[in-house]
C-alpha cells in the first residue's frame, strides 16, 4: 500500500517537473500567438536549433554562460528574420498558409544540421552534476530541477511584464486589436518583433535544458509535438494556461507511462496527452483559459 502510494507520488512529481519544462517550450508558442496571431508549428525545431547552437558553443569553449548567450542571440535573430521574410508577406492570408509555412520551415530546420554541422548526437553538459537531488522520498535529476526553476522564473518575469510594464500593456493592446492599438500610437511592428524575440529567448533556454536532458540531435525537435496538447488544454493565448496545460500533460503522460505501459507494450507516453487533447477539442475547444473568438461574417 505504502509502496504504491510512493510510486504514484514519484510519478506525479516527476510528471509535474517535466510538465513545467513542456510549459517552457509552450510559452514560446503562446507568446507569438497572443501578440501576432501567428502559429508556429516549428516550435520543436526552434528548440532543436537552440540546442545545436548551445552544444556547438560549449564545444568551442565558450563556457556555459557564453553558450546560453549564443543560443539566445541566434534564436532572437532567427525569429526576427522569420517574422520579416516569411510571416509578414503572409499577413491577411488564410491561416492554413501560415501553418504550412511553419511546417515547411520545420522541415528545413530538421534537414539543415546533417548537411552543415553533422547529424550526430551532441551533449550539452551543464555544471550542475548529475547526482539526483533528494526531496524526502523523491529524487529528481538536477536538469529537471533547473528546468522547473527556469520556467517559474520566466513565468514570474512574464506576469510582471504583461501586468505592470508599459511595453507589456502595449503588447496586450496589440494582441487585443491591432488596428485600435495602431490608432493609439503603438508601433505594432515593433511589438511583433518584440514578441518573436521573447519567443526566441524562451526557445533558446528550452533548447539548452532539453538538450542537456535528451542530447542534441534532430530527434530533439520531436519535443515540439508535446506543445500542441499543452496549448490546447490551457488555451492558445493564455500564459497561465500554458503552465497549467504543461503540468497536466506532464502528469498524465507520467502516470500513463507508469501504469499503462506494462499492459500495452509501451508508447502510451506519447499517446495519452493527445487523447486528452481530442476530448478537450470536442467539448471545450478554446481550452481552460483561452479567449473565445466570436466570428462575424
Amino acid at each position, binding site marked *: 500500500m505504502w509502496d504504491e502510494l510512493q510510486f504514484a507520488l514519484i510519478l506525479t512529481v516527476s510528471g509535474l517537473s517535466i510538465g513545467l519544462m513542456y510549459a517552457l517550450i509552450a510559452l514560446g508558442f503562446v507568446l507569438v500567438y497572443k501578440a501576432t496571431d501567428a502559429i508556429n508549428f516549428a516550435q520543436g525545431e526552434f528548440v532543436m536549433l537552440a540546442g545545436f547552437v548551445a552544444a556547438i558553443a560549449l564545444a568551442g569553449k565558450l563556457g556555459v554562460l557564453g553558450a546560453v548567450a549564443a543560443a539566445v542571440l541566434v534564436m532572437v535573430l532567427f525569429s526576427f528574420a522569420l517574422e520579416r521574410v516569411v510571416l509578414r508577406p503572409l499577413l491577411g492570408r488564410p491561416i492554413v498558409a501560415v501553418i504550412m509555412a511553419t511546417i515547411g520551415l520545420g522541415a528545413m530546420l530538421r534537414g539543415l544540421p546533417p548537411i552543415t554541422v553533422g547529424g550526430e548526437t551532441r551533449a550539452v553538459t551543464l555544471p550542475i552534476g548529475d547526482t539526483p537531488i533528494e526531496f524526502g522520498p523523491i529524487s529528481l535529476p538536477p536538469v529537471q530541477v533547473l528546468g522547473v526553476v527556469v520556467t517559474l522564473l520566466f513565468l514570474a518575469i512574464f506576469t510582471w511584464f504583461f501586468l505592470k510594464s508599459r511595453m507589456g500593456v502595449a503588447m496586450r493592446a496589440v494582441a487585443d486589436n491591432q488596428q485600435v492599438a495602431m490608432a493609439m500610437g503603438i508601433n505594432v511592428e515593433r511589438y511583433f518583433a518584440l514578441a518573436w524575440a521573447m519567443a526566441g529567448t524562451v526557445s533558446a533556454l528550452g533548447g539548452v535544458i532539453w538538450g542537456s536532458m535528451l542530447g542534441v540531435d534532430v530527434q530533439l525537435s520531436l519535443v515540439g509535438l508535446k506543445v500542441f496538447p499543452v496549448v490546447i488544454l490551457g488555451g492558445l493565448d493564455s500564459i497561465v494556461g500554458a503552465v497549467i496545460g504543461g503540468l497536466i500533460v506532464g502528469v498524465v503522460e507520467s502516470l500513463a507511462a507508469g501504469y499503462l505501459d506494462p499492459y*500495452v507494450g509501451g*508508447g502510451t507516453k506519447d499517446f495519452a496527452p493527445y487523447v486528452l487533447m481530442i476530448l478537450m477539442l470536442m467539448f471545450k475547444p478554446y481550452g481552460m483559459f483561452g479567449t473565445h473568438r466570436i466570428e462575424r*461574417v
Partner: protein
Amino acid sequence: MLHRESGVFKTSYAADMALYPLPIARATIAAIVLLFAVVLPLVFDEYYLAIINLVLIAVVGALGLNILVGYTGQISVGHAAFMSVGAYTAANLAVKLGLPFWITLPAGGLMAALIGAIVGIPSLRIKGLYLAIATLAGQLIIEWIINHTPAISGGAQASIEVPRPELFGHQMRTQGQLYFFLLFFAALATLASLNIVRSRIGRAFVAIRDQDIAAEIIGINIYRYKLLSFAISSFYAGVCGVLYTYYLGIANYEQFQIGVSIDYLAMIIIGGLGSILGSILGAIFVTMLPIVLRLLMEPVLSMFYNSGEMSAVISSFRLVLFGGLIIFFLVIEPEGLNRLWRNIRNYFRVWPFSY
C-alpha cells in the same frame, strides 16, 4: 489544356461547365491518353516505369487531399494515417480472407473514409489551427493504435506481406503490368475529381471554403458537406494506401508516418490549392524531386561521403529543399505550379501578336 483558344465564346452555363471546353479538347485528351497508354510503356524500361508508378499512386492521394484542403478549406495534417488505414484493411482482407483486389481496394477506401469522417467530426466545431492540431492528433493516435494492435498490424514488425494483384488469373509481376493497373486508377481518380468539383457537392465545398458561416446562411448543410469532404478525401487516401501496398508488396506503418502527410500537403501547395491539374503537377514534382536530387548529387557527394552517410545527407538535403519550396510557393506564388502553367498558356494564347 494544351490547345489554344482564340477567345471566349461561351453563351450558356452548361458550355462553361463542360469537360471539353472546345471540340479540339477531345483530340488533346485522346493524344494524352495515347501518350500514357501506348507511348510511355513502350519508351521506358522497368526502372523508369517503377518511378512513374510511384507518381501515379501519389496523384491519387494528392487529388484526395486537394478536395479537402484546396476545395473545402479544411486542413488535414493526418492524411498518411488514412492511407495506412486503407493499406492495413486491404492487406488483412487480401491475406487472411484471400480476397482479390477489386474487393480489397474499395474496402480499404471505404474503411479510410469512415475513419476519416470520424477524425473530421471536430471540424464541425473547430477550424484552422485547431483542426490542424486535431488531425495531427488523429495521425498520431491512428498510428499508435495500428502499431499496438497485433490483430491489425500482423505482429512484431507491424507489417503484412501482400501478394501482387491478379487480373483474369494472371498475377502482375512486372512494373509494366502494374503500370496499367495504376494508370487505370489514377485516371479514374482524376475523372472522378473533375466531376466532383463541378457538381453541386463541389460548389458547396467551395462555398464552405470561402466563408463557411455565409455558406450555412444560404442553405448549405455545412455539417454534412464538411464530413462528406473528409470522407471523400479519405477514400482517395485509403485507395492510395491500398495501391501503394500492392506496389510495395507489403503493408507497413513506417510508410505512412507524419512526414508523408507533410509530403502530400507539399504536393498540393506546390502544385496549386484548389486545382486538379495542380494536384497532378504537384504529385509529379514532389515524387520526382528526391529521385532527381539523388541522380544529380550522387556523383558530387560520393567524393566526400561513403554510401551510408550519403543517403542520410541526400534525405536531409531533400527536407531542406522541400521546406524551402513550400515557403517559396506560399510567399511568392500561392497558386502554385498550376498558376505558372496558366501564365505560360496565357502568354502563348496571343503569341506572337501580343497586342
